[in-house]
């Protein structure tokens, strides 16, 4: 739930999603759900010559399970807030 919230705060920011098939897609994060499925607008593929079939694609929906990494804009991530929220969530997990 915590990571889901982080992504929600990053909507309308530019992110780069690296998939498990090594395809890297940069675009504007439009929405995210609890499975960390991601919708990107205005996308560009990192190595377009290797993936010519992606050139015409302007927006896409990415299934969460095929994501390897997401590169986030560091200036929009409050690391102190993240650490506090993680500790809080870890505590509620162990209490159960």
């Amino acid at each position, binding site marked *: *739930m*915590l*990571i889901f919230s*982080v*992504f929600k705060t990053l909507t309308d920011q530019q992110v780069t999603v690296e998939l*498990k098939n090594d395809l890297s897609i940069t675009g504007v994060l439009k929405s995210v759900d609890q499975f*960390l499925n991601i919708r990107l607008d205005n996308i560009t593929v990192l190595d377009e010559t290797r993936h010519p079939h992606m050139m015409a694609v302007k927006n896409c929906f990415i299934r*969460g*399970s095929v*994501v*390897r*990494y*997401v*590169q*986030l*804009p*560091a200036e929009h*991530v409050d*690391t102190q807030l*993240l*650490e506090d*929220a*993680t*500790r809080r*969530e*870890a505590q509620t*997990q*162990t209490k159960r």
Partner: protein
Amino acid sequence: MDVSSTGIQEPFDLIRLSLSERVFVKLRGDREMTGILHAYDGHMNLILSDVEETIMIVSEGEQQATVNVAKRKMDMLFVRGDGVILVSPPSRT
């Protein structure tokens, strides 16, 4: 078991105590990285900053396999938990 001195009761506590410290992460697909840990959850999804990723590219030769290493750096990175093999706290030497 002396819990009070270490604060470690379950495996995730080891990761919790590594928050805001540089950790080593081993991933599927011959990848490793170090970065400063800022967030994690029960799936081992991670958010790291100041990341250096190392990719081992193994090419099988006629006689022996050769390993090439590719490195790259990233500012702020989310790592999906299903790719994580292990998270190791910083070495305190």
